[in-house]
């Protein structure tokens, strides 16, 4: 049986007919020549105009027991994602096959200076629209379909394309924007306005590969064994309050910042409204999306140091602030006043990554697990210690971030793994 007829058989089977809301069915259009022209009523509800969707949001929060795993080689030696995949698969109980994803750093050595856009298309129309924007605003060095292969649970995958871009010089000068700002404005424009198109990652030498399935399925689907990166962030999802769809999988990315999250942000709507004032568009139907935009705003646009950015996301309690010495107290008070709406309220453990550094941090009550491990030039972060021990049975050091505390690993000199709490850094 060939792929096309097998697919037809699936589409017409009773199993799927009884589950019209199967999120995996979205965007079967545009996968090469296997195109479906009609959508089920549920899909239409879910993927109607983006502005309507914002008005009647189908997902405001998500409670989950996801699995997180991150691996970084502090010497920037590139490795396959195989070990990270084994580790995240060891925590299979934490995910339920409704989402998984990978962010690889250093995976495009031939295009290190070009912005790599990974775009998910639900239909051909979206692709035409997006490519029109890209041709107009960028110099496109290469545009190609991301190589995939058939894998379990990925029968109804949307189409994935990647573009290596440089901002069009004349336009960039005209707008007097930094290249990063220029790219972000296009990402938000496309995500916010082009129906059926979602930019999954937009950094230099970074790529996010994600979708519906278990981590192993997605690694198989995206042929991840063909890539090598010095840092891999992985996530296995267990969505309970929001839909498990291809765009809702983690990691979430903007430029070179990627975020994988386990937990629930009760403050999602407050955070989202605040970020929308700064031009960010939240379109992925998942609370975790705001973390990546919040960190982008704080770290890149407002150039706030990492420890203070984390103090915005997981702010110290007022009585802790009151007991600080005068200048610290004033600083932290100002931060809470200015960025109160970026406080992430709810349980979380988060792995965030930028080029050359990986950060793990937990909420200020520590309601989700996170463990770190150091072994030689590798640093690992994981929801469970056993996942780290699977690929590195002996560890030089095990670190467990406490409430509101972060552990940070940096490649650049001074190369270090450190515990970071507000206004305080300690090497481990």
């Amino acid at each position, binding site marked *: 049986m060939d792929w096309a007829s097998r697919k037809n058989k699936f589409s017409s089977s009773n199993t799927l007919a009884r589950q019209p809301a199967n999120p995996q069915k979205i965007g079967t259009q545009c996968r090469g020549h296997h195109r479906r022209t009609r959508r089920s009523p549920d899909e239409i509800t879910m993927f109607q105009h983006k502005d309507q969707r914002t008005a009647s949001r189908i997902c405001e929060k998500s409670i989950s027991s996801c699995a997180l795993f991150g691996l970084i080689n502090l010497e920037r030696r590139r490795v396959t994602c195989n070990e990270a995949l084994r580790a995240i698969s060891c925590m299979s*109980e934490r995910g339920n096959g409704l989402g998984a994803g990978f962010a690889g750093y250093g995976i495009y050595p031939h295009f290190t200076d070009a912005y790599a856009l990974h775009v998910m298309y639900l239909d051909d129309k979206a692709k035409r629209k997006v490519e029109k924007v890209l041709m107009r605003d960028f110099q496109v060095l290469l545009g190609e379909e991301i190589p995939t292969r058939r894998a379990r649970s990925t029968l109804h995958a949307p189409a994935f394309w990647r573009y290596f871009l440089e901002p069009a010089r004349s336009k960039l000068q005209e707008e007097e924007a930094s290249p990063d700002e220029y790219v972000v404005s296009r990402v938000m424009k496309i995500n916010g306005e082009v129906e059926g198109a979602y930019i999954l990652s937009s950094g230099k030498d970074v790529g996010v590969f994600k979708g519906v399935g278990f981590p192993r399925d997605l690694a198989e689907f995206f042929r991840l064994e063909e890539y090598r990166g010095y840092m891999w962030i992985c996530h296995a999802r267990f969505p309970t309050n929001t839909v498990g769809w291809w765009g809702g999988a983690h990691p979430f990315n903007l430029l070179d910042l990627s975020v994988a999250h386990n937990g629930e942000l009760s403050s999602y709507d407050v955070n989202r409204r605040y970020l929308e004032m700064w031009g960010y568009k939240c379109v992925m139907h998942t609370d975790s999306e705001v973390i990546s935009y919040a960190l982008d705003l704080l770290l890149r646009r407002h150039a706030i140091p990492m420890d203070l950015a984390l103090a915005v996301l997981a702010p110290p309690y007022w009585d802790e602030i009151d007991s600080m010495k005068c200048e610290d107290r004033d600083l932290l008070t100002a931060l809470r006043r200015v960025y109160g709406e970026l406080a992430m309220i709810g349980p979380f453990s988060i792995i965030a990554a930028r080029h050359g550094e990986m950060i793990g941090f937990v909420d200020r009550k*520590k309601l989700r697990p996170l463990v770190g491990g150091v072994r030689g030039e590798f640093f690992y972060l994981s929801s*469970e*210690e056993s996942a780290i*021990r699977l690929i590195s049975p002996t560890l030089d050091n095990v670190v467990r971030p406490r*409430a509101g505390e972060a552990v940070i690993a940096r490649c650049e000199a001074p190369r270090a793994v450190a515990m970071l709490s507000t206004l305080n850094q300690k090497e481990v």
Partner: protein
Amino acid sequence: MDLRESLEPRGRLQVDGNVALLDATGLHYRELNALMRRLSAEGVENVELHNVNGQRYIGTGLKRPMNIIVRGTPGNDLGMFINGQRIFVYGNAQDGCGNTMNDGLIVVHGSVGDVAGYAMRGGRIFVRDDAGFRLGIHMKEYGGKKPIIVVGGGAGDFLGEYMAGGLILVLGLKEEKNECVHSPKFVGVGMHGGVIYMRGCTIHAGKNVLVEGVEDEDLKLIRSLVEDYFNHFNLDLRVNDFISDEFVKVTPSTSRPYMGLYR
């Protein structure tokens, strides 16, 4: 062919009388625990598990007494609901160790993750190094059943949260590079029964708890538990080095802390 028949010829499972040796590499927790229940039903009373990595609920559901040695990193909810079994871990335990255990013993030669001793109803847990957050959350006692947790190192915040009974002893023994390991905040938040003894640290306690020095009677109890702790981990007995004013005792000031909250 069932799991046992496939493991035995390869030497991964050896059963000799009431003693069994099992290599747990790659086994799913359901397979591992089903095998343990089967061995228990066949009269095996001592099991040594090697290469344990991430398997959950080890020891759960056994009907008869069993001594279980775990080498590796057991998964979440180690010894959940156990009723008289004894578990000895050579490695670190993850979250939920001793969840709702009814009776028995868990000895961890390493650290435990968060919510160890969650809703524990009886038995004892000894941890050589550190405990994570919410140690002994909602543990309780009734009649003759009184759960006890002894931690050699430090404990995380919310120690004894909603505690309704039993005893937690945190010794703060380890010379930590990171001194903040032993300064838990919100100790005994919502506590309305039981007692927490802590050594050598400043207490950031929840509301509705009393923080006092220890009496002779408390010290007698502490000494006997410290002796047990040192015996379990083969450490030099230094019980007499413990002086009474190093300890503080945290007890609830009322058995109904939230009475009147919604009036």
